[in-house]
């Protein structure tokens, strides 16, 4: 079973809670996905006097673990402040750390990310950093105290799927014992199956489910694909060859003619 900061999780799908048509449909999708962990992004307005109250209350009623998210933060200070507010609101030291470096591509600012990860780890947070597939950055995040890494496979919300398979393979090979979760860029279940077949530990999704015509059905489709990819990885897959290999041996075969 997958362990994230000492917490055993059965489902290898982490689901974001933004952009669903309604909270009722969000709840359906969470149930259909059988996920154990949902991410929730916090905005200043939500942490105000009445604290986004009803929406967060609804998230709490889903009885899944909440991974708060610093989505939309562009600086170390903003991310650290948001993480602290999230700890208050959700009473958890887990934080999905996002520090955005480019408004258009939503590419992480990896320098600020490492800095924020160091500060937050030092204050007892369990940091889940949204990062690129860069190995050196990943090393620095580990040095900063992270025990989980969440590389993108394409820009957030782009639905492009894994655009750099060699980089993802190389990251898996370099960090054999670190839980690796692909965060961002997944568009369809086959994309999720591909990264799970590479040996990634889990997949984090939001837009691909929330913006589907039927979010609950799409959540179930992803759950199936992620399970299939995981089992296939464990079962050991064939590598492609450049010649045909018959599945039935031809030598010694009886000939009726």
């Amino acid at each position, binding site marked *: 079973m997958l362990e994230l900061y000492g917490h055993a999780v059965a489902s290898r799908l982490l689901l974001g809670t933004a952009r669903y048509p309604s909270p009722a*449909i969000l709840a359906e999708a969470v149930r259909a996905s059988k996920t154990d962990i949902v991410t929730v992004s916090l905005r200043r*307005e939500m942490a105000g006097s009445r604290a986004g109250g009803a929406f967060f209350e609804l998230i709490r009623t889903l009885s899944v673990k909440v991974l708060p998210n610093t989505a939309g933060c562009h600086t170390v200070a903003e991310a650290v402040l948001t993480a602290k507010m999230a700890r208050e609101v959700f009473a958890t030291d887990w934080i999905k750390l996002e520090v955005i470096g480019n408004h258009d591509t939503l590419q992480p600012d990896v320098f600020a990310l490492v800095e924020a990860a160091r500060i937050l780890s030092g204050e007892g947070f369990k940091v889940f950093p949204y990062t690129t597939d860069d190995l050196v950055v990943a090393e620095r995040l580990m040095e900063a105290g992270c025990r989980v890494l969440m590389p993108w496979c394409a820009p957030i919300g782009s639905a492009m799927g894994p655009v750099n398979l060699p980089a993802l393979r190389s990251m898996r090979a370099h960090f054999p014992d670190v839980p690796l979760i692909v965060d961002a860029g997944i568009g369809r279940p086959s994309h999720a199956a591909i990264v799970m077949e590479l040996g990634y530990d889990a997949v984090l999704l939001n837009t691909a489910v929330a913006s589907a015509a039927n979010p609950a059905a799409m959540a179930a489709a992803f759950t199936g694909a992620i399970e299939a990819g995981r089992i296939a990885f464990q079962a050991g897959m064939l590598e492609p060859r450049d010649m045909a290999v018959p599945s039935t041996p031809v030598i010694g075969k009886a000939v009726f003619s």
Partner: protein
Amino acid sequence: MRVLIKGAGVAGLTLAHELTARGAAVEVAETAQHVGGGASWFAGGMLAPWCESESAPAPVLALGREAADWWDAVLPGHVIRNGTLVVAPTRDTGELARFAARTSGCDWLDADQIAALEPDLAGRFRKALLFRDEAHLDPRRAITALHATLQASGVRFYLGAVPDFPEAGFDHVVDCTGAHAIGQAADLRGVRGEMLMLETPDVSLSRPVRLLHPRIPLYVVPRGDSRFMIGATMIESDDAGPVSARSLMELLNAAYALHPAFGEARVFETGAGVRPAYPDNLPRLAFDGDTIRLNGFYRHGFLLAPSMAKSAAIRIVGRMQADNGQQSLVHPRSLHPSGHKIIPLQSGAGR
């Protein structure tokens, strides 16, 4: 029969109209000093059920498609039936195809057709969708006019009323207090919306324009006199504080993306309000003990209030006997003996 309506927003006023039309003596208590003081005041006023069905459940189209006719009949001259134009920046034209696939009632336009409909957008977009049967109105003018119409037909208004307005002597009390009922009505939550008003003589539009954007979809509604309403954010919060800098920036960016001349416009108002919403984002008529609630209009107040008010009035007053003008009064609790029943939405409810 005497009915007290609490709340003079779009829900309360449309219900007052429907009840008065069925012979009830209606009085309206509003804690604010003027009508439409809540979310109604910041509404876009788009009667756009086809566009909304991109992400809204089916009842929104079923209940909203006759809203324009209702407003036109009750307030002649307020409804403008020019459809809705949906555009996307060139790099996001895929969003248009997605939007068209999720909706109905629209036609694809090319650059020439866009120029013919909205000359000021000529050359700015190569493709667009026109939702031909949609309409819009100015919510503030409509609310003010409906208030006057109701007063003329004998509805008594108590503006600046105390929150616990005395209910003795009324046959029914209907709570239409919108976001004020958050915390009292089970499952009701707030969804913050921010908007701004721009004024420029350099842009002219004849219909609401929606700008699709993967992250920040926004709309511009012409309000006449060179004024435009730009809206609206959707934030899970019941905070009604002033607009945030980020939201202001996003709203202005969208206006600028639609037409650079908005860069020179005057910002003459920014506003924020809290939309009342149930978990499915659909309105409800709920019989909650002795309290009847009509609430949860979310971003669809002007769109769904007419049809919800009509079905609420029918349930509250009972069926009119058209031949002799007599009413058979039916107490809602006799219809719903549990005394705590939510009336599910059905397409065509109340017709």
